């Protein structure tokens, strides 16, 4: 039986949905599952880790692990992978995952695949599917090593309802701090925001909003819908939206139930970040905007006119 170790995604003390999604997929391919959770004061998350579908929980809980630091985090993952005898080590789609995964692979002499959308066994051999060239192609990749470290694309796997695991907690020893790369501070702009990666609805604003007043107008719609509020590159470069809100190949990759692109033309880099969404609505005054080629529904119109009507109509239909 293959063994899959999933890295618990914990943000600001909360266990993220990707953990249950990855564990569900691991169980679906018949694997034995374990999870490794890294951070400070995270023992209270153990019941959540069990409920997410893990059969063993490796816990690295140390005040020194409060701020993310790639070196010590990778040491914890390597430690858990060795103790568990993991064949596969899966990270959810996050910046921390993307930076830790190659380190873990190098330390274990394992193969590394980022951004995978599927994984399967062909006999003893692992194969993965992943996008490349800005999502314009998919690759089927054969893994030549026994072990694979992978980062799973957001939304690639669904959580199985009613999944659960068994409690078997293993405490990991604290890793040495990275004295050559010292994390000084994390400037969190995100407090109180709805996390783009978790949101059921994501609304992104683009160049069509022109300025801060336009951004604020679209934000009201996001507030109404309790949606994650994202941005195209242009509005980040223009200083109207913070970096961490950028949706696209180079920013956040999202796959919500509903994605609403407002005033966004649809550059490939942006589309690469949202085309996994279940339903896409675009609002743009240019009927030829490429965003309409990937949208299920399109409204051709000036966003300054459309957004207030959209708000009113949605309120009406929800009441």
């Amino acid at each position, binding site marked *: 039986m293959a063994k899959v170790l999933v890295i618990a995604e914990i943000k600001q003390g909360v266990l993220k949905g990707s953990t249950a999604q990855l564990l569900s997929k691991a169980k679906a391919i018949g694997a034995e599952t374990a999870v490794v959770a890294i951070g400070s004061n995270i023992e209270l998350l153990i019941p959540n880790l069990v409920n997410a579908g893990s059969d063993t929980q490796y816990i690295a809980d140390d005040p020194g692990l409060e*701020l993310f630091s790639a070196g010590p985090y990778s040491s914890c993952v390597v430690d858990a992978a060795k103790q568990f005898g993991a064949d596969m080590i899966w990270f959810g789609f996050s910046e921390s995952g993307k930076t830790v995964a190659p380190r873990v692979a190098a330390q274990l002499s394992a193969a590394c695949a980022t951004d995978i959308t599927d994984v399967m066994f062909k006999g003893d051999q692992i194969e993965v599917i992943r996008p490349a060239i800005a999502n314009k192609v998919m*690759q089927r990749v054969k893994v030549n090593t026994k072990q694979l470290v992978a980062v799973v694309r957001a939304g690639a796997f669904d959580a199985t309802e009613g999944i659960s695991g068994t409690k078997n907690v293993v405490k990991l020893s604290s890793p040495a701090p990275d004295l050559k790369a010292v994390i000084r501070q994390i400037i969190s702009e995100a407090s109180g925001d709805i996390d783009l990666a978790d949101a059921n609805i994501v609304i992104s604003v683009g160049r069509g909003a022109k300025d801060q007043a336009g951004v604020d107008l679209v934000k009201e719609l996001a507030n109404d819908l309790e949606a994650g509020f994202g941005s195209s590159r242009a509005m980040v470069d223009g200083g109207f939206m913070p970096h961490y809100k950028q949706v696209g190949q180079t920013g956040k990759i999202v796959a919500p139930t509903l994605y609403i692109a407002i005033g966004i033309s649809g550059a490939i880099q942006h589309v690469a970040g949202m085309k996994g969404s279940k339903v896409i609505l675009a609002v743009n005054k240019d009927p030829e905007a490429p965003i309409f080629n990937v949208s299920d529904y399109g409204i051709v119109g000036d966003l300054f006119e459309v957004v207030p009507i959209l708000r009113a109509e949605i309120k009406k239909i929800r009441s």
Partner: protein
Amino acid sequence: MKILTTLKKVVDVELNIKVKNGAIVEEGLQYVMNAWDENAVEASVQLKENKGAETTLISIGGGDNTDIIRKAYAMGIENGIHIDDPALTKADSFVYARILQKVYEKGKYDLVITGKQAQDTDNGQTGIILAQYLGLPCVSNVISIEVMDEQHIKVSRLGDVGTEIVELELPAVVTVSDSINQPRLPVLRGIMMAKKKTIKVMDLATLGTSKDEVGGAAPKSEIVEFIAPEARKGGQKFEGDVAEITARVVDLLANEAKVF
């Protein structure tokens, strides 16, 4: 400060990419400098201009990389090495990292700057693996680099919940985001000067290594085939009276797509 900047020649992602019989159709493709590497070049040149750093680029890949190396020269990079070897056709990130390790060890650099990923593979691994092989500190997805003193830099990185500020002891490896800068367009004078500069071309043997030593004979993973992705199709696009079409779309979202 000696900086090593990596440069990869990759397919132009702005063009249409077609897949046939499990392979990418070569016809009509064009090859350019990886976009994130342009950011790495710009970051390096800024450190040259502002801090007197010495800049060297390394480009790995079978074939003619002269055009992208000359472009980096025109942007301000001073020295260039091209590792050209037919053994590199199936190289994965680990093989690239091993070759970079050899180049690094010969040159004794203070800082390696790579793009955060290559736009052909979108792997985002090579720089990080290189740091691991060299035992150097590394930060990925970097959006600013500040020189603190001869032994330290301070970088900021886009992390999961905000901007992470990290102090790195040199030598170090950073991989840069496209948010770090706006790469300059080469000016005519730079383009003319770049034409006169030499490029040091080496194969693996000249570098003092072999396909086996860098792992090229047994890559950890290999692409079996390319598959055309399921294309998303445009659906229903409405034009006309804005109030009317907006109401219509909201109704469809609720009753057809059932997202509300």
